[in-house]
């Protein structure tokens, strides 16, 4: 049976509309006009234990609403959710004891307390037995290199250090399911890499099921085998990451530095994306013309200094995908 099961999930908010200005505020007190917002309009998917799924979509697509329902904070308007056999919003306390959640934008540690004190308090909140807690804590401290930070108040940590502490805090009770909501937002490059490496180990070595939402496509590229793209409250695609790329954007790029001035290139299936004095960036589709054939054709006619093939940047793939589905934020 699936560890996470989501069927026909819908969530409709009623939002009070208010005319601007003082008179609008006053009339809003007397008679409110409501507008319905369909944050989710029938989302279904399931997740097996040990999977790592990235959940992506433009702002306002319904990602956070889904994560909030899955973590028991929100009750859906209709549809069915089961996580490890429990309905999150019916059985909040039992459910949240079994999951871990990390918000990139929000801390769950105590600002003025040393990191270690916060961990101790969480162990009591989650009713972790002392012996198990010490073992788990020591394991996480060494994996996340937290030893030098334990005595420092959280407010003195850098963002990167704090995120490492947040991960430990979310995992002290040894949850088998982890929800990550934009875990790398605002981090510098080494910290991002450290977070990705940690999540990968957690998933591969300890079998923790991970559901990740992010806007950083490098997170997705580095971590997820499976990607769900959500837009306008619906699942636009649910596929392996590789096929998302090839399905949307088969196109590749060829960068060529010529020995002399860049020539005109006219070949079927090849377009010039940009040119400068001695170089060209060409776009081609490997199905029409394979890379070796294209390179051979160019080097046969022109003197070339350097040449390399690129895939389209993942951001561009996703932006194109949103456009195809008219899913960009209004």
């Amino acid at each position: 049976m699936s560890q996470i099961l989501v069927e026909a999930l819908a969530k409709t908010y009623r939002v009070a509309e208010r005319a601007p200005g003082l008179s609008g505020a006053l009339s809003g007190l007397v008679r409110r006009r409501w507008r319905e917002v369909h944050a989710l309009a029938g989302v279904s998917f399931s997740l097996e234990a040990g999977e790592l799924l990235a959940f992506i979509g433009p702002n306002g697509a319904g990602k956070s609403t889904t994560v909030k329902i899955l973590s028991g904070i929100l009750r859906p308007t209709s549809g069915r959710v089961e996580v490890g056999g429990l309905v999150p919003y019916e059985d909040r306390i039992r459910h949240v004891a079994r999951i871990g959640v990390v918000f990139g934008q929000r801390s769950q540690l105590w600002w003025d307390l040393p990191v270690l004190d916060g961990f101790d308090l969480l162990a009591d909140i989650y009713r972790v037995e002392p012996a198990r807690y010490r073992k788990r804590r020591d394991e996480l401290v060494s994996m996340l290199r937290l030893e030098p930070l334990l005595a420092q108040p959280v407010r003195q940590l850098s963002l990167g250090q704090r995120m490492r502490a947040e991960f430990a805090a979310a995992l002290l009770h040894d949850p088998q399911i982890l929800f990550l909501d934009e875990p790398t937002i605002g981090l510098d490059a080494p910290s991002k890499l450290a977070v990705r490496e940690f999540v990968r180990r957690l998933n591969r070595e300890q079998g923790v099921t991970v559901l990740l939402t992010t806007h950083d496509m490098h997170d997705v590229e580095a971590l997820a085998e499976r990607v769900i793209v959500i837009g306008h409250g619906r699942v636009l695609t649910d596929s392996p990451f590789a096929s998302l790329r090839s399905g949307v954007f088969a196109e590749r790029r060829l960068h060529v530095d010529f020995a002399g001035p860049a020539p005109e290139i006219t070949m079927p299936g090849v377009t010039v994306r940009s040119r400068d004095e001695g170089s060209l960036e060409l776009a081609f589709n490997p199905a029409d013309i394979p890379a070796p054939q294209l390179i051979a054709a160019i080097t046969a006619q022109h003197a070339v200094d350097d040449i390399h093939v690129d895939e389209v940047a993942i951001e561009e793939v996703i932006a194109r995908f949103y456009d195809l589905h008219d899913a960009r934020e209004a």
Partner: protein
Amino acid sequence: MNALALYGRYVVASLRAQAQYPTATLMLILGQCAATSIEILGVYALFSRFGSVGGWKFGEAALFYALVNITFSLADLLTRGFEVFGTDFVRTGAFDRVLLRPRAAALQLAGYEVRLSRLGRMMQAVAVLVIATRLAPIHWDAATVAMALWAITGGVAMFCGILVLQATMAFWTVESLEVANVLTYGGVQAAQYPLNIYATWFRRLLTFGVPLACVAYYPVLVILNRPDPLGAPDWLLPFTPLAGFAFLTLSFLAWRAGMARYASTGS
């Protein structure tokens, strides 16, 4: 770990956090003490001008004052999380984090912050209690001390109930909730004076609506061994603090309705 022990751990954590800023904490305590002491001067000015009000002398009025202020300072110490619930939890989204922990939300809010600065009000109230004991015919024995503690317990429950109601309103509106201060600070002001000096409708409000009289006025009558000038039966007076617990229970029922609403609206 059971809820009470966990609450103890929250309290210790909060005290350790405040101990990070010892000077500021001390100054806040002294500031509270000075600011709230102004009120007893007002009561004194009134009684020194008129001698007695509604049949009460200053020493007796000082007992009303001391008891309600001790009660409120304790409640104020315990309910910071509810007081700032709308601004610091609902509006900022921090309440989601509370819901992600496998404990009752009310327990986590109660343990959110134990404000030492509130001891300032308690310090001056205890000083006034000493003055009242010297001026008024109060005999502290096991029975009257027990009555005082019972009244304080019921009163803390009632003020906590008001704060829980204030927090509950935040589920429906994020507008300013200053209106609740009418009940808390205004309630303390009202209960500092004996009930019989007030108009009938206001006495009824303080007895049956927000039952401040039940946790302050009637118990003090028992301690002073005075019959109620308004004619409430003597046997009933020692039971009146129960009203505080009833009020708190009703407040938590409203709170649960608010929680259910939050789960369906998310804001």
